[in-house]
């Protein structure tokens, strides 16, 4: 037996990719110094959307579970952070009623901060609580469904309902959430250090995603996605793996939500709703599911073109979105990155032949 043979493994972080990434990161990090303010404000948002899409990709692209309610976790992260910021902002900037608690509490008849919200005055605590709560909810949801082998269409519909219910609950309990109006006017956090923070977190999640999918556990996840029966008969507790990934992905989504709330300065129930969730799925699908870079490309491309086209094209934009869903499903199943990847490997094969 020949010892110490190796298979060629694509490097976890190939040099060209690292160089390209450093270039892109530097370009984004310094953009505010030379770019337009409006585009800067979009950049921060899109980065958060990218992380959100990445979180969907982790469960859909890498374990095959389609969640149409990922917005739930994004929303939880966003609401905890925004509430905390709003409470703090209201305390020093008197609201229109002159009080020191958020205005939506006042017009709902509250006269002081409810007891359970007092801890939210501490921003780091609020953020951590949001992340924890989102992950916990994902865990509970995973245990309920995955352990009972509820996958596929059923799971998709239940997650959709989940986000719908959260959305309605947010609107209903407006004394604590701002209701239909969302939470707004809590100071401006679209500052360069926040942009850098978002960028750093994006890089970290990118690396985590890459490690999760290109290491041993990544191979296991792919094997579960490819053939969960085989994996089960190979001794893997498939449900546990899925719950784990679902929790990680929810954590990511919640983090994205938290940063989005700080950057954007306004959030609403829509950030937790089904439409946003499904939009995230389409970003992932367009970029290429099952790839780490795909969600980033998809989010920037779809969202970017929406912002720059929808003003001029108004209703046409929605038509394009609808057609995009169908196109991605029928024609471009692997998304942009997947299609390019396939074309590339086919070319390589042609050349080597």
């Amino acid at each position: 037996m020949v010892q110490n043979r190796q298979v060629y493994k694509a490097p976890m972080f190939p040099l060209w990719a690292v160089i390209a990434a450093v270039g892109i990161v530097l370009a984004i990090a310094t953009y505010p110094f030379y770019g337009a303010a409006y585009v800067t404000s979009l950049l921060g948002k899109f980065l958060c959307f990218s992380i959100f899409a990445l979180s969907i990709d982790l469960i859909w692209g890498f374990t095959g579970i389609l969640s149409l309610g990922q917005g739930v976790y994004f929303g939880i992260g966003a609401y905890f952070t925004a509430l905390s910021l709003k409470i703090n902002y209201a305390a020093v900037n008197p609201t229109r009623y002159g009080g020191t608690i958020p205005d939506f509490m006042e017009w709902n008849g509250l006269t002081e901060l409810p007891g359970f919200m007092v801890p939210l005055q501490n921003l780091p605590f609020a953020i951590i609580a949001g992340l924890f709560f989102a992950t916990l909810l994902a865990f509970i949801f995973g245990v309920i469904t995955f352990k009972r082998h509820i996958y596929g269409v059923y799971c998709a519909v239940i997650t959709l309902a989940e986000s719908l219910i959260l959305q309605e609950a947010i609107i209903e309990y407006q004394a604590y959430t701002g209701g239909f109006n969302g939470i707004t006017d809590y100071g401006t956090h679209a500052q360069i250090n926040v942009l850098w923070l978002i960028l750093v977190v994006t890089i970290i999640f990118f690396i985590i995603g890459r490690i999760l999918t290109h290491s041993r556990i990544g191979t296991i996840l792919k094997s579960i996605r490819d053939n969960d029966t085989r994996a089960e008969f190979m001794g893997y507790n498939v449900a546990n793996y899925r719950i784990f990934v679902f929790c990680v992905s929810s954590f990511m989504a919640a983090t994205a939500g938290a940063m989005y709330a700080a950057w954007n300065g306004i959030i609403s129930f829509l950030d937790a709703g089904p439409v946003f969730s499904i939009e995230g799925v389409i970003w992932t699908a367009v970029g290429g599911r099952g790839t780490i870079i795909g969600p980033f490309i998809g989010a920037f491309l779809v969202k970017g073109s929406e912002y720059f086209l929808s003003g001029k094209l108004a209703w046409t934009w929605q038509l394009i979105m609808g057609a995009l869903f169908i196109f991605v499903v029928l024609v471009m199943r692997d998304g942009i990155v997947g299609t390019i990847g396939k074309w590339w490997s086919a070319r390589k094969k042609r050349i080597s032949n």
Partner: protein
Amino acid sequence: MTNILEVKSLTTKVSGYTILNNLDFSIQENELRVVLGPNGAGKTTLIDMITGRYKPKSGKIIFNGEDITGMAPDKIFVRGVSRKFQVPNLYETLSVYDNIMVSLKGRRKVMKSLLGKVTKQDNNRIWEILDFIMLAEKAEDSVDTLGHGQRQWLELGMLVASEPKLLLLDEPTTGMTKDGKEKTAELIEKIALDHTVMLVEHDMDVVRQIAKNVTVLAQGQTLAEGPLSEVVENQEVKAVYLGKGVLDGT
């Protein structure tokens, strides 16, 4: 010698049909047992029952002294039962190497596999298996480039990698050429040297090449059991294969 697997009066029904009918069956440790039988005799169902895919209607399955009836497949696997499916059941987008890698024994828990790396020993073991199943050259290729026979071998390799106590092989030679069948039979013989194997097989050439003890199933029950040479002479068995009515006593 002790029985590593004991199936006691197993009965199962699928949408009204009785597939297994009060079946008793056992395999000794380190035995290579070939299970024969016409289509619909219940061979695959038996494997499904043992590996926990379906729950039996009644009866017991005892593996290594432990009652595993109705356990989840992954739990049964961890106790040492691996199965091969009739149609090769692989991880289609992974490479050949990775297919073996995720099948290596141990580290089935989420947290352990999160931290686990492929060690030097693992790597050597994978190559050993790849050599064994004659796929070392294909290590980096993705599974969908393999021929049918190679896919069968790969699945065998995956089973070996998981170091089970008992291998259940469901028709590992279907769809192969004569040459392929011979090679596969050799592989199985080698595997049987240090594993307990239950082989469901149709191809009599293969059976003749490797079988020592044979069980013939028909209509969910054991029709005959014993050394191959004896079973082949059994009139009832001949009838199943050669057409004398099964129960008409000729």
